[in-house]
């Protein structure tokens, strides 16, 4: 039930035809909402949005009563892109795990912060900044959290050499 409403709400962010399943999405995929096979992937909805749509997408989830599970990044070095992945889930018995992802250029990895919507995103964003150097615009306190205070390296980048 919540799955369909969330899917529709997220789909409204995209104008025109967007891929609705994995097969249509192609690789590298275009922005849009995909229904995933829960048995295989472990989550239901997979929405790839542009960085400027992020706040709108997260607001939809916040209004839908989702809680924030985690935020992480992936360094796609071959495609010269950086991906930020947001995991959301629900407390009730209508399981619906939503993944919001956004891709930004690797050289200028900047996405808006969602800590204004979800206070708990604060540490997750700081951690992602630690590991990938992704900048979260508007974050109140973007200093290293898990790495030392003076760390200027980003260990999860694929070209990181210790």
């Amino acid at each position, binding site marked *: 039930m919540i799955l369909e409403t969330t899917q529709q709400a997220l789909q409204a962010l995209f104008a025109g035809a967007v891929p609705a399943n994995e097969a249509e999405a192609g690789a590298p995929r275009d922005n849009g909402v995909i229904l995933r096979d829960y048995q295989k*992937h*472990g989550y239901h909805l997979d929405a790839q949005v542009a960085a400027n749509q992020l706040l709108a997408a997260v607001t939809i989830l916040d209004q839908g009563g989702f809680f924030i599970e*985690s935020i992480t990044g992936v360094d796609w070095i071959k495609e010269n892109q950086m991906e930020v992945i947001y995991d959301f889930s629900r407390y009730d018995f209508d399981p619906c795990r939503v993944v919001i992802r956004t891709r930004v250029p690797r050289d200028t990895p900047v996405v808006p912060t969602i800590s204004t919507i979800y206070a708990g995103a604060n540490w997750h964003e700081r951690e992602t900044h630690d590991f990938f150097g992704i900048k979260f615009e508007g974050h109140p306190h973007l200093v290293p959290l898990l790495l030392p205070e003076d760390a200027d390296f980003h*260990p999860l980048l694929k070209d990181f050499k210790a």
Partner: protein
Amino acid sequence: MSAPIQLRPDETFLLNVGPQHPATHGVLRVKMQMDGEYIVKAETVLGYVHRMHEKMGENRTYAQYLPNLSRLDYLGALGYTHGHVLAIERAAGIEVPERAEYIRAITVELNRVASHLFWFGAFVMDLGGFSPLMYAIQDREHILDMLEAVTGARLTYCYYRFGGLYNDVDDDFIEAAKRFIPRMRKSLKKYDALVTGNIIFQKRLEDIAPVSAEMCRKYGATGPVARGSGINFDVRKNEPYSVYPEFDFEVPVYHECDSMARYKVRMDEMEQSLRIIEQGLEKLPGGPIMTEKKPKNIKLPVGDFYQAVETARGSFGIRIVSDGDKNAYRLKLRSPTYSNMHLFDEACEGMLIMDALAFMGSLDLVIPEMDR
């Protein structure tokens, strides 16, 4: 009861709690801006035992990464390894024999009881009562003995394998587990009388440190912290995995939102875990413990896989981004205490330091799990 007092943010001092402090149970640091004994503002500093497990996940094969998972949460390690093997099995499409899944559930629940027991002892010790810790450790020792006889380790287990188990349980284990359950129930009654009913204990926890359900949602708190705030959320029920749908158990939920509610949730959870173990031992089917159709070197298909499990501390998630290689391209560990601790900063404002540290104890922190 802490009366509402007017805090003076202009006349404060900075209290550095940790990284070496008896209440933080490890190396956690909280910078507290204090007005007398009241906390005006707190900032948690993490990372003192950060080991970059996620990078190790990229450099090691999936099988080689197995021992890492038990180094996250040293008190409830089996829950985390369970999440890892389930994630790989889901992604690679490996079928697990039923007997193996039952043994996994039994051992995970035993480990959960052990973890909660240790938390119980340490929590009461935070409040100044020392003897319950010793009683709790005494009971926990029985569990560790059982698990040691099966897995060969006491804390950092490496027992589950993709598609099954390292080795089978024997009759001794089943007997020991059956003996343990009534013993543990008796102990739980003792803890109830000695600690839960104690007026000093109640006064210290009741109405202290309220965490609203909305706050839990914003911070992504899970596990007993969320259940103590009236949220009926347990991954075992909400998103059933393994053989948990086969078991008849309840999810204890309390609506008081205070430290006492979080305490009671965990105490009740021990009883529910005992029920699961009881049923598991009864239903334990025969058969193999390892699937035969298992590739020697596991390679996952290209894609993005997520698996959530309910560990002793909350919902643990593991995300594997695979590019088809024998290593993960990216491996993210979502640790529950990381989110649970995050709300501490906001929730402890205006609290007495005494209550704040009791609140911290009620969050059930394991620092290596938080720092990863």
